């Protein structure tokens, strides 16, 4: 029999862990999220490709801006003319963390800081960001195993609960909790998860499930590469 004080606590806990009241994004928000997300990702891919394969452009930021703008606008083309139409068919909407990281990398490429060159690998060199990336890898494995029903709990479904977003927020604050100063280059990466959570709370993007907001399979693959490379460097001393 419940005591008078245990009932509210039990109710509160039930609400916190509940997965049966998901709020999903509106159709308009999803359309905007899809095109905005892919426009940022494409802009970064375009600029990264231009820098790599277009000799002499590294210092011509105006042309890089042009490439970024062109790629970003292309994603907003109508219907089948938009790459977002085809990318969405295969991959849906990129996670907000992916979009934020691409935006950060794009910005650092277009307006490079005076210090070190920008790249995710530089950011991951910071142990705290590396810890986040490792957590991303592990979370992705949990989500993949859950997709194939190889876990006793429904990890993806739990992403509709308020408790999951609280857990993600705690993890997102790790860099601030664990250290006072962080490397300047790649600083945007510290904000990736908090920003994704904010967007998820306000607009429920991209799908209403918090795991889709912080991690997508493509980002998960990239994180594997970064973490493994860092691990090899660590082992070599």
């Amino acid at each position, binding site marked *: 029999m419940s005591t008078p004080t245990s009932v509210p606590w039990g109710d509160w806990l039930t609400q916190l862990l509940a997965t049966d009241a998901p709020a999903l994004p509106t159709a308009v928000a999803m359309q905007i999220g899809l095109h905005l997300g892919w426009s940022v990702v494409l802009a970064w891919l375009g600029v990264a490709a231009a820098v790599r394969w277009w000799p002499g452009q590294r210092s011509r930021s105006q042309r890089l801006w042009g490439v970024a703008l062109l790629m970003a606008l292309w994603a907003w083309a109508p219907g089948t003319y938009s790459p977002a139409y085809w990318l969405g068919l295969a991959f849906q909407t990129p996670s907000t963390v992916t979009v934020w990281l691409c935006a950060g990398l794009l910005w650092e490429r277009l307006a490079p800081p005076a210090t070190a060159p920008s790249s995710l690998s530089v950011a991951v060199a910071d142990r705290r960001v590396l810890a986040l990336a490792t957590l991303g890898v592990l979370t992705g494995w949990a989500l993949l195993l*859950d997709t194939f029903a190889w876990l006793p709990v429904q990890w993806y479904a739990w992403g509709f609960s308020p408790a999951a977003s609280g857990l993600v927020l705690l993890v997102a604050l790790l860099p601030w909790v664990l250290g006072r100063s962080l490397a300047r280059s790649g600083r945007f990466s510290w904000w990736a998860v908090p920003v994704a959570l904010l967007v998820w709370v306000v607009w429920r993007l991209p799908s209403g499930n918090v795991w889709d907001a912080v991690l997508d399979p493509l980002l998960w693959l990239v994180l594997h590469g970064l973490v493994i490379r860092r691990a090899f460097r660590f082992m070599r001393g």
Partner: protein
Amino acid sequence: MPAGMAAAHASTLLPLPASHAAALMVFWFSGDRESGPNVQIAASQYDRATRQWSAARFVVNRFAMGGQLGYGVRRLGNPVAWMDGHGRIHLFVVATGGGGWAASRVLHLRQSSAANSLQELAFEPVRALPLSWLWNTSFLVRNAPLALADGGMVLPVHFELGIKYPTALRFDSEGNFKGMVRVSQRPYMLQPALVMQSPTQWLAVMRDERPKGKIGVAHTVDGGQHWNDLPDLALDNPDAAVAGLGLGPGQMLLAHNSSIASRGTLDLSRSTDGRNWARVQTLEHGAPDDEFSYPAMLWLDGSLWISYTVDRHRIAWARLQPGATPAGAKP
């Protein structure tokens, strides 16, 4: 059949309000061939006065849906219909992404037209239901939802990338998605059909993808919060979809292919406990190469309505009244 279409499959039945000129609607997918690029969702209505099915028309087109979603839909498949508390029709349609059926998503559509007469009926996409982290693949829908007392419903779906497992999705009376619960731990069960035994006790009868399989069963006693696998039914099943219907306490019906290796026989069986089933009648019996498959059932106006696929070319139907000779035709 819409004119010029050679293939038809996976029908689903929807009862209409008593005030409607039509008693029920049937939806199915049709095109040149299954998984063809021109497959669309077709519909027809059964007129109360004339007792005839209307000429079929397409109500969902993948290009139109893709345009409204903002991203492409590669192919359309099984539709499932439901009417919400406002009388709006919702369609849940299998829509593939970058691949075959294993790359499917469940596309949730809602009636956008003011009226739901067949000529006016139109749909708009709500969303692809978020069911999987892996680019939201690979969930499919097949069987009718289980209506709940609060006006909501539970929609059975299944995952089928490599392995198969069934899942139940909950919706409120407005058609808002309210969560998902895995139904079975067995990695070869698909296309669950939900049968209500009481408000809190339900069965999920499932297609078994294994050769020489039986019909699988899972059980919940808490209104779908938790599910437990039960031993298979004694009924043979040739890896084919089944349809279940709960008419009341101790009154359950099952439409199923009843031979191990062929979809050439379609039976209707009855049970009082969900474990022991007795054949009521054989709905179709053909040669081993014939196919009478993917049944859908509905109880309406004191009759049992059944629709099913014939040889993947057309949709047949039957209306069975207790103690009467079945009426039916093949539109």
